[in-house]
């Protein structure tokens, strides 16, 4: 005869067993809660504070003092593509015409046509003219044709104030720093390519060598050391400028003050931080 039979409502043994089980559950839960409580305490511990101060984790650089922005004077661009090559070398971007952190587009309006012809270094005709995929140039297309208007437009990541790429990133690998730069943590990127799709400017590409998304960092390793980005350094005509909006005398602050600047696709609401002179309605 079992206890259950004697007292079917709540026999002593079952009661004790139940209490025992719940004690285990409660204990485990409290361990979990305790670990959770420990997280912020660990972050607040002395070593974390000194390694991750509010001024940012980069030694010798205070990201609260800066707000970076970029400017492009498209009327000065001669389409020499030195910026593309300098960027690829500086940032280990694969040497092929399809993956670029910065690139230049050529817009050509032929006589009597309304739509522009647009080509860039990944155009088969331009690849053929360069002869090798290690070297880039704009081919002498449109020779002998009547051209109404033609110009070059350098492009790069806009480091938007409202970055869509960061919004869609499922892991926290894409993020925005307080100094206005959008970066990718390659150790955290799972290569899902949502961000590549999400960018309205096509500024991101998928790097087959690292299996992560990749894009322009405004040479974060240079600007945090007081240097200019590689593409700005390479440009022989000063078509590109990088500068700090918190410094009223920086190249970009002056450029924005002295010119009527535009941004690409303002209607998207991303609030880009690359400011252009020399766009027209078809450039997007």
């Amino acid at each position, binding site marked *: 005869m079992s206890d259950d039979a004697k007292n079917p409502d709540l026999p002593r043994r079952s009661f004790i067993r*139940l209490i025992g*089980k719940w004690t*285990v*559950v409660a204990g*485990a*839960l409290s*361990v*979990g*809660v305790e*670990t959770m409580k420990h997280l912020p305490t660990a*972050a607040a511990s002395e070593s*974390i504070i000194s*390694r*991750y101060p509010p001024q*940012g*984790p*980069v030694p010798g*650089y205070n*990201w609260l003092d800066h707000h970076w922005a970029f400017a492009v004077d498209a*009327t*000065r*661009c*001669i*389409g*020499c593509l*030195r910026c593309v*090559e*300098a960027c690829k*070398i*500086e940032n280990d971007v694969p040497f092929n015409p399809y993956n670029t952190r910065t690139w230049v587009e*050529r817009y*050509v309006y032929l006589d009597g046509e309304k739509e522009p012809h647009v080509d860039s270094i990944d155009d088969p005709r331009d690849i053929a003219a360069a002869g090798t995929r*290690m*070297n880039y*140039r*704009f*081919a*002498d297309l*449109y020779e002998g044709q009547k051209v109404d208007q*033609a110009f*070059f437009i350098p492009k790069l990541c806009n480091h938007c104030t409202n970055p869509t790429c960061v919004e869609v990133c499922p892991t*926290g690998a*894409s*993020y925005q*720093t*307080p100094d206005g730069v959008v*970066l990718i*943590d390659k150790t*955290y990127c799972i290569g899902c390519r949502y961000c590549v799709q999400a960018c309205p400017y096509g500024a991101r590409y998928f790097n087959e060598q690292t299996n992560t998304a990749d894009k322009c*960092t405004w*040479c974060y*390793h*240079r600007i945090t*050391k007081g*240097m200019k980005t*590689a593409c700005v*350094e*390479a440009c*022989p005509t*000063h078509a590109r400028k990088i500068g700090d909006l918190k410094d009223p005398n920086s190249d970009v602050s002056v450029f924005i003050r002295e010119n009527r600047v535009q941004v690409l696709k303002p209607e998207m609401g991303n609030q880009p931080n690359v400011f252009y002179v020399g766009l027209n309605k078809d450039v997007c």
Partner: protein
Amino acid sequence: MPKHIVRLIMLLAAIVVVYFVGRAFLTPKSFYVYGHFRGASPREIASIKPTFLDPTAFKESEPAIYATWSTGIHKVVPCQDCHVGAVHEGAKGPIPRGPFPKSSLELCTQCHQKIVARPGFQPQINVALHAHGLQCVTCHNPHSPTETPFGKPLFTTSTLASAQGNLAAGQKLSAQCAACHGAKGVSTGPAFPNLACQSKAYLVTALTEFQKGTRSNPIMSGVAKGLSNADKLNLATYFSSQKCGGK
């Protein structure tokens, strides 16, 4: 409470515990310090070593070239615009000895070939007409292209190109050249280059080079030998004023 419900609750509790413990161990310490990202990541990105250097970085290692470059018209073109690509050919050290691409016909034309969309302020040439397949560095010092590779002025915009020769005198002299180059500078055969509409300074330089022997051709060296400086300028003035293709 029925047994299967208790088991279910225990299972759920175990999952919650595993989640929190796993999360505590797997989330990097610096995550959430600044936001929804790893706080160490900006430091890692910022610690990459810059490779594209300011030209002043080569002031000490290449003093002579730096001096020529910094006083010439190419001082707006940083060293590594022409030299950095060589890194990809396995070169060591800050400045590779040679430029990349190796052929200056490919290098200089990246910026100077006349193509649609290149703005007018940039000096541009029709490569075939201007260089005739010769390397640009045979006539131009790449580090100061208004000089020859030997340091002599190749042209100053004020002297050669703008000096006025005597058109009539040039036309008279050109009779000597007509057999090969044509009376109006449109040549009589593929072996002879056209002279019509060629730039004046180019023609003067070419004739001077034939005279000096820096460019050699059995026929032209002989022809050029007898020409004075004034003759060269007059001939160049005449041929450069002729219409391309004689039309």
